[in-house]
C-alpha cells in the first residue's frame, strides 16, 4: 500500500513538474521575447480589474493566460472530421506528459528510513521510452492537420510530420552514442554515473565525453519541437498557423502546451545526459567532498533539495537558450531544413556513433565509469 501511495505521489510530482515548467515557460517566453525585441511584454494581468497599484506580473500572467484560453469558445469546423479533430490535441499532449514519468529529478529522498527514488518510474529502458513518446507527438500534428479538412492545416501537418521524422533519426543517433558511453538506457543510472570525477577534479558530465552528440541532440530536439528557426509547420506568413489553424480554446492551448513541453523535454534530456542531471558538483549523499579533502556534511533532506534545485536550474537554462535561439534566428526554407537534417546531421550522427564506439574500445576506461 505504501508503495502504491509513493508511486502516486511521484507520478503526481512528475506531472506537476511538467505542467509547472510549461506554464512558466509561457511566461518566460512572452517576457523573454519582449526583452529581445525591446518591448515591455505581458504586463496587463492584474487582480481586481487593475485596482492594485502594482503589477503582480508572473503570478497573474501565469493564471490569466491559461484562464483566458480555457474559457474561449470551442469551435469544430462543420467540414472537419469530428472524432479526429477531438483526438489530435489529446494525442499531442498525452505522450509528452508521460515522458516526464521516467525523468529523474533527484537522487533519493530519505523519509523514515525509506529511500524513495526521485523518479516516477524507474524504467530500465528510459531513453527508449523518451524517444518513443516524443515521436508519438507526430500523430497529434498529422491528425490535427488532416482532421481540420483545411488546406493550410493539412500542409502544416504534412510538413510537420516530415520534419519531425527526419530529425528523429539524428536524435536517435545522438542518443545511441550516449548509450555507448554509459552502457545503460536507464536515465537514473546515467545521472548517477555523472557523479564521478575526472582526474579527481572535473565532474564527469556527459558533455565532456560526447560533445558532438550534445550539439546533435540539441539541434534535432529543437527541430522536433517545431520552433523557430524550424517552425515550418506553423509558418504564419505561409500557412496561417499550420496544423492548428482550425483549433481554438483549450484544444489550441493543448497544441501550444505540447510545444512548450517539447522545449522542456529537450532541456531535460540535455541536462540529464550531458550536464549531470540533478548532480551538484562535489555533492554526495552525505555532503560536499571538495577535491583537496575539504568535506562539509549536509543533512540528507537538504542534499535532496539542492539536487532538485540544481536539476530545475539546469533545465531552465537550456529552455532559456532555446528561447533565445527562437527569437534570434530567422526561419529556414523548407528544402534547407530537410537538407540540413538528412545531409548534415545524419552523416555526422553516424560518424559520431562509429567514432565513439572505436574510441571507446581503444581506450578502455575512457568512457563512463
Amino acid at each position, binding site marked *: 500500500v505504501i*508503495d*502504491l501511495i*509513493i*508511486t*502516486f505521489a511521484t*507520478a503526481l510530482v512528475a506531472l506537476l513538474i511538467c505542467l509547472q515548467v510549461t506554464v512558466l515557460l509561457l511566461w518566460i517566453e512572452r517576457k523573454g521575447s519582449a526583452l529581445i525585441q525591446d518591448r515591455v511584454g505581458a504586463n496587463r494581468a492584474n487582480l481586481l480589474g487593475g485596482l492594485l497599484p502594482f503589477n503582480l506580473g508572473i503570478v497573474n500572467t501565469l493564471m490569466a493566460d491559461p484562464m483566458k484560453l*480555457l*474559457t*474561449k*469558445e470551442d*469551435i469544430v*469546423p*462543420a467540414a*472537419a472530421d469530428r472524432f479526429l479533430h477531438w483526438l489530435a490535441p*489529446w494525442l499531442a499532449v*498525452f505522450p509528452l506528459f*508521460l515522458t516526464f*514519468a521516467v525523468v529523474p529529478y533527484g*537522487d*533519493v529522498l530519505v523519509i523514515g528510513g*525509506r*529511500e*524513495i*527514488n526521485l523518479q*516516477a*518510474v*524507474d524504467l*530500465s*529502458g528510459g531513453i527508449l521510452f523518451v524517444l518513443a513518446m516524443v515521436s508519438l507527438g507526430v500523430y497529434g500534428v498529422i491528425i490535427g492537420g488532416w482532421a481540420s*479538412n*483545411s*488546406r*493550410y492545416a493539412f500542409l502544416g501537418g504534412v510538413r510537420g*510530420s*516530415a520534419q519531425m*521524422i527526419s530529425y*528523429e533519426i539524428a536524435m*536517435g543517433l545522438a542518443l*545511441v552514442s550516449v*548509450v555507448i558511453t*554509459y552502457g545503460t538506457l536507464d536515465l537514473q*543510472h546515467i545521472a548517477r*554515473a555523472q557523479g564521478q570525477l575526472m582526474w579527481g577534479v572535473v565532474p564527469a558530465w556527459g558533455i565532456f565525453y560526447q560533445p558532438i552528440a550534445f550539439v546533435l541532440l540539441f539541434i534535432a530536439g529543437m527541430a522536433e519541437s517545431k520552433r523557430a528557426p524550424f517552425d515550418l509547420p506553423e509558418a504564419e506568413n505561409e500557412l*496561417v498557423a499550420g496544423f492548428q489553424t482550425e483549433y*481554438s*480554446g*483549450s484544444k489550441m492551448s*493543448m497544441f501550444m502546451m505540447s510545444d512548450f513541453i517539447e522545449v522542456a523535454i529537450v532541456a531535460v534530456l540535455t541536462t540529464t545526459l550531458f550536464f549531470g542531471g540533478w548532480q551538484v558538483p562535489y555533492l554526495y549523499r552525505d555532503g560536499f567532498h571538495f577535491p583537496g579533502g575539504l568535506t562539509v556534511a549536509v543533512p540528507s533532506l537538504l542534499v535532496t533539495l539542492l539536487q532538485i534545485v540544481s536539476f530545475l536550474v539546469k533545465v531552465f537554462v537550456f529552455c532559456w537558450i532555446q528561447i533565445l535561439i527562437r527569437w534570434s534566428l530567422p526561419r529556414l526554407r*523548407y*528544402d534547407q531544413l*530537410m*537538407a540540413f537534417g*538528412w545531409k548534415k546531421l545524419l552523416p555526422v550522427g*553516424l560518424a559520431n556513433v*562509429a567514432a565513439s*564506439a572505436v574510441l*571507446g*574500445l581503444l581506450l*578502455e576506461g575512457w568512457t*563512463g565509469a
Partner: protein
Amino acid sequence: VRYHSSRGSKTGDGPTLNPYAALLINAALCGLVATILLFMSRILGRRRGSKVKYEIFETGNPPIGSLRGTRFPVKFYLTAILFIVFDIEVVFMYPWAVIYRELGWFGLAEMAAFMAILAVGLAYIWRVGALEWN
C-alpha cells in the same frame, strides 16, 4: 563501476512495484489530466456559433471544394519511407550500444558492416536526388 540496464543494480529500495505497473498509473493520471484539459473549453467556454464561424478558414474566402481527394507532393511519402529505413537502423543500434563492451571488437565489426550497408544506401539516395526538395 559499470552501469547496466538490469534492474538488479538499482540503488535505493524505493517503490518495489513493478515499473510497468507504475507506468500504467502514470499513464492513467496523465490521460485524465489531458482529457480534462480537452473538454475544458466545452465546459467553461460560451458557445455562440454561426454558419460562417464553422466554416474552414481560407483567407476569408468561402472554402472551395474539400480537402479530401486533394493531391499533395509525393516527396512527403518518400521521406516517410526513408525515415523507416534509417530509423530501424537506429533501433537496431540500441541493443548493441548497451552491451557493446562485452561484444568488443567482434560486435563492432558486425555493426560496422551493418552501418556500412546503410551508409551506401544513404549515398545512393543522395546521388539519386531523393533528398532534394524543389
